[in-house]
């Protein structure tokens, strides 16, 4: 199932943080949403899973409008991991990842074997096997981030939305998580993620969408999008893309 955003405008604190965005993410695709701080990336993602309501515009999953779906159904189809996962309670890694299965069951239904399998697979995929019985409050920032990603994976969604899934991760785990997202896309998931590291975006994303001041300024393959003009104008850096290698030379 694909994700489609049409004419989305989101108002926060009296101004349009997202101002007329049209975007589609297809099955089997990894789409990287990039842009400077404050460009509206997180707000756009939060609108997708209905944490905030747009001022106008619509989000569709296939033919279904997101705001007409029951929350549980939306959660089953579209899973998200947030940027700064908080873990204040004394839960184990496994207990947090299990939260991803709640949307599959009714109020009075307990966990089933199938849920256990999904949790197990997510813990493995996120490289958390050794940490599964650890109290999440004792984990490092990067480990917590992987727990959050595992929770989203445990949902077994059709669409995966990740807000800066790599910002706390060491280099090995950055590559691990991005490689995992590629595999999931190969299995038919639609993946939308925000990234700050343009070099990683070039290596791992099929397409890149550039958000600047709430507007999409460019969408396309890295080669189509990341030219010298855009790098200078949106990101304020000098650089150029050669093949699949992005060279950043310095600030403008």
């Amino acid at each position, binding site marked *: 199932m694909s994700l489609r955003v049409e004419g989305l405008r989101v108002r926060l604190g009296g101004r349009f943080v997202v101002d007329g965005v049209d975007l589609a993410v297809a099955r089997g695709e990894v789409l990287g949403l990039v842009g400077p701080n404050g460009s509206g990336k997180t707000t756009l993602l939060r609108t997708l899973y209905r944490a905030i309501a747009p001022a106008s515009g619509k989000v569709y999953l296939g033919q279904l409008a997101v705001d007409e779906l029951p929350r549980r159904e939306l959660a089953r189809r579209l899973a998200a991991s947030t940027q700064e996962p908080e873990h204040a309670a004394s839960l184990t890694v496994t*207990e947090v990842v299990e939260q991803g299965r709640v949307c599959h069951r009714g109020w009075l239904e307990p966990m089933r074997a199938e849920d256990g399998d999904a949790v197990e697979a997510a813990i493995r995929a996120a490289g958390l096997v050794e940490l599964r019985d650890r109290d999440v409050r004792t984990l490092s920032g990067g480990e917590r981030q992987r727990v959050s990603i595992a929770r989203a994976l445990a949902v077994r969604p059709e669409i995966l939305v990740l807000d800066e899934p790599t910002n706390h991760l060491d280099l090995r785990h950055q590559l691990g998580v991005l490689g995992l997202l590629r595999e999931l896309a190969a299995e038919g998931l639609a993946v939308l993620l925000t990234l700050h590291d343009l070099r990683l975006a070039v290596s791992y994303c099929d397409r890149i969408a550039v958000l600047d001041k709430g507007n999409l300024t460019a969408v396309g393959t890295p080669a189509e999008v990341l030219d010298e003009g855009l790098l200078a104008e949106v990101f304020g850096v000098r650089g150029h893309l050669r093949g699949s290698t992005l060279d950043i030379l310095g600030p403008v």
Partner: protein
Amino acid sequence: MTVLVGVVRRRPPLVFTLLALTAAVVAVCVLAVSLGSVWLPLGHVWGILAEPLVPGLVDVTWSPVRASIVWDSRLPRVAMAVVVGAALALAGAIAQIVTRNPLADPYLLGVSQGAGLTVSLTMVLGVGVLGFVALPAVAFVGALAALLVVLAVSGRSGSVNVLVLAGLAVGQVCGAGLSLVLFLHAKGDQAKQVLFWLAGGLGDARWDALAVPAVVLVLSVLGGIVAGWRINLLHAEDDAATALGVNPRRFRLVMLVGVSLLAGTSVAVAGGIGFVGLIVPHAATFLVGSDARRLLPVSALLGAGFLVGADLLGRLLAAPSELPAGVITSAIGGPLFILMLLRTRRRMG
């Protein structure tokens, strides 16, 4: 803010923990029936309890007075302590999850005082004919109203200070309202009665007063176990909970209605018993972590045992008279709470 950090370890299966705690609670209960101004040997206690169940099989070696002490005085009292202790602890545990704040407790949130105000209004204005079903209902309304005011004032800023201050303020206002009611309308012994009830005692425990709180408790525990998995979503931040398929605001409100029911019905029958809802969930978290599926039943069991023990202590310390259980729980809980605050302060530097 975390007050007690659970040790990282594999936890024993929940069934063992529950069985061990249940055994401990039963043991405390039997002690509480046996001990008091009149000492009843354990053999007699078992016999008196078993006799109506298997009549003829037990040799009656005790006087009818002793049987009456067990059935009409100590057992209802112990049962009341079990129900109220479990309900208050459960209310505290839920409040702490819902507000994601380890300082939440029916008492610190002003909920108990709200219930106290409406109950004493009812007692003083002489609507006593409404009986034991109406008092818990009245208490629930007061509890819920107080809670809604506290939440409206504090928002969900996550600030411990704002929440506790709002709770204190609402609690104070309720207390002042209560004084005013007593001052203007109390006749004869009413003021004394209300104040005695507010001190939080189980001395007037009667079987018929137990029905409503017991039903509320049992339904809450069952609900907590069944929906505990979903309640865990409230441990996550609002955005994550939304993405996982719940409406956190609505869910919180439902849970807080549950807190008001538990705390309100407890206050209606037992008055103001402080610190159970604050201290016990911390002990439970220390034992089994924050997963609601474990935390809620374990809190209920620990709360039951704690209040039975506190009531027993109150009877033994001041025998042949007695201290209200609320005095004992506060005497134990207050210093523990201060200790927790000091530990937190140290951790935060």
